[in-house]
């Protein structure tokens, strides 16, 4: 039931959880797993928005998670431009066990990577998803850009299903997480909002009670 790659904990590992990590866990694995989490989240978001009526709560929670990761990566200095023609195949265990990310900050203190350590490695693992972080999400002035993947070859390690997703999303130009939302909203909600008489979208516009006219047919039945 658990994701592939989740290691069964030996008793020693279990006890180690609280007391800090064994020196055996290399620091670049944190970057790797954080990257994996980011990619997983972006895929989830794209899948969310492929539905005509996405689950808004889920989309919001995933988008917020993406923002948090982006913020942390920008603080680390690992958030930067990546060349689209990244060479080499992504390792097969791309979506590795990311249990390391489940541990608290306290436990991770000893193993947070210094900026730029092992990041040449990270560059190879970019899936080529187009994400333009908004000014809000990034505090650092650099605006990193992940190009839309024009060549599919460098996603070697991904499963077939992910390839198919990317193919269907080829024409999507949406960039930032926020734009993903905006797309959904404008095409999906506004017409309905007009029809139900909700004027404007600011709470202050609802100074008076809003009346929602229903269709005349929907009244007493039975």
């Amino acid at each position, binding site marked *: *039931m*658990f*994701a592939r790659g989740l290691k*069964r*904990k030996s*008793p020693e590992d*279990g*006890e180690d*959880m609280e007391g800090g990590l064994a020196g055996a866990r290399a620091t670049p694995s944190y970057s790797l*797993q*954080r990257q994996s*989490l980011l990619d997983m989240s972006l895929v989830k978001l794209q899948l969310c928005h492929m539905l*005509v*009526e996405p*689950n*808004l*709560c*889920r989309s*919001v*929670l995933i988008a*917020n*998670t993406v923002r*948090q990761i982006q913020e942390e990566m920008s603080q680390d200095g690992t958030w930067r431009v990546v060349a689209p023609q990244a060479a080499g195949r992504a390792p097969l265990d791309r*979506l590795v*066990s*990311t*249990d390391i*990310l*489940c*541990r*608290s*900050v306290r436990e991770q203190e000893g193993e947070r990577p210094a900026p730029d350590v092992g990041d040449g490695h990270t560059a190879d693992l970019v899936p080529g998803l187009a994400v333009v972080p*908004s000014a809000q999400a990034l505090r650092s002035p650099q605006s990193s850009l992940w190009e839309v993947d024009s060549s599919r070859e460098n996603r070697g390690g991904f499963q077939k299903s992910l390839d198919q997703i990317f193919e269907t999303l080829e024409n999507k130009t949406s960039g930032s997480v926020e734009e993903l*939302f*905006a797309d*959904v*909203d404008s095409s*999906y*909600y506004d*017409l*309905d909002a007009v*029809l*139900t008489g*909700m004027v404007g979208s*600011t*709470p202050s516009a*609802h*100074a*008076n*009670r809003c009346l*929602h*006219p*229903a*269709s*005349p047919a*929907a*009244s*007493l*039945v*039975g």
Partner: protein
Amino acid sequence: LNPIIQTRKIIYLSEIWLVVIFQQEQENKIQSHSRGEYNVYSTFQSHEPEFDYLKSLEIEEKINKIRWLPQKNAAQFLLSTNDKTIKLWKISERDKRPEGYNLKEEDGRYRDPTTVTTLRVPVFRPMDLMVEASPRRIFANAHTYHINSISINSDYETYLSADDLRINLWHLEITDRSFNIVDIKPANMEELTEVITAAEFHPNSCNTFVYSSSKGTIRLCDMRASALCDRHSKLFEEPEDPSNRSFFSEIISSISDVKFSHSGRYMMTRDYLSVKIWDLNMENRPVETYQVHEYLRSKLCSLYENDCIFDKFECCWNGSDSVVMTGSYNNFFRMFDRNTKRDITLEASRENNKPRTVLKPRKVCASGKRKKDEISVDSLDFNKKILHTAWHPKENIIAVATTNNLYIFQDKVN
């Protein structure tokens, strides 16, 4: 399955989205050792699948919530809602029918008036009990987003319905108008970071309601303060524990259910890993916190990957507000006694429990050596989740819903 209990009746929704009402049999005086069993009382389909022509999408008949209305006369009423439309249903019994009409035959055909020579008074004669469910009101077209909650006011005249971004107030008699009382939609949808996850009216104060959010906050609003309750009267939020912070902190803080105690003095919230009891007079932290399945904290990433982290568990109080209950995975459900501080884990499954036997407590082994009869975390079945539980308002009878079955448990009668 989504069971709700009201006195003698339980309703649940099957996977093909029927409303099924169970009724407890009258206690068998001869066999005093057993309480009445619950048998099917009525079955009906609440919502039809609809097609939205403007958006070219089908609105499922999947029911999100059902709520009984307090019973005022012989008939029962309940509200059921799918993503967009709320319906009021009347459930009535018919156990007699009129016979002996002068102008009609028994089969309904009209008699030739010239053949009528005497007059008689029609009388009611008993018949086999027939239970009818009829839709009395349809409350439609007031929600752009998906409805997640409905709650009946203590005035028994109004109710609220909540979707991801708005809460509307309805009068049970009026279907063509509703009042918007909460609107958290940002001017720019790109700025959306928080949604409404649940809402409930206070059980005694008809002006007061609460709504919970995906960021783990609860807002208490008073409808007398203003027409649009955008400013809360109280904001309940527990400060985050910095030592427990991870990328999943926000997701697991999202509240999936909020329920007032029967007394109205407390409210309970359910987030992914815990149940919290709040005193309405204290906003900065809950008065009690119960861990439902803390052993999942180290598995959050896997649970995020398989989407289990988005599961929405409900919770409920017993009639005296002394025990709270909620579901978990592997068909486990948990009860917490607020007075003794003891808790118990039970399992709703046919394989492990024969009918009419006492449930055996279960235990999950989080780490270290697994004792006999314990289950290790890695063996838990995450497809078997108990999202819905309900407790009889007066007796120790509970309804627990697994994916395909409804279980009813009651206190052992001595």
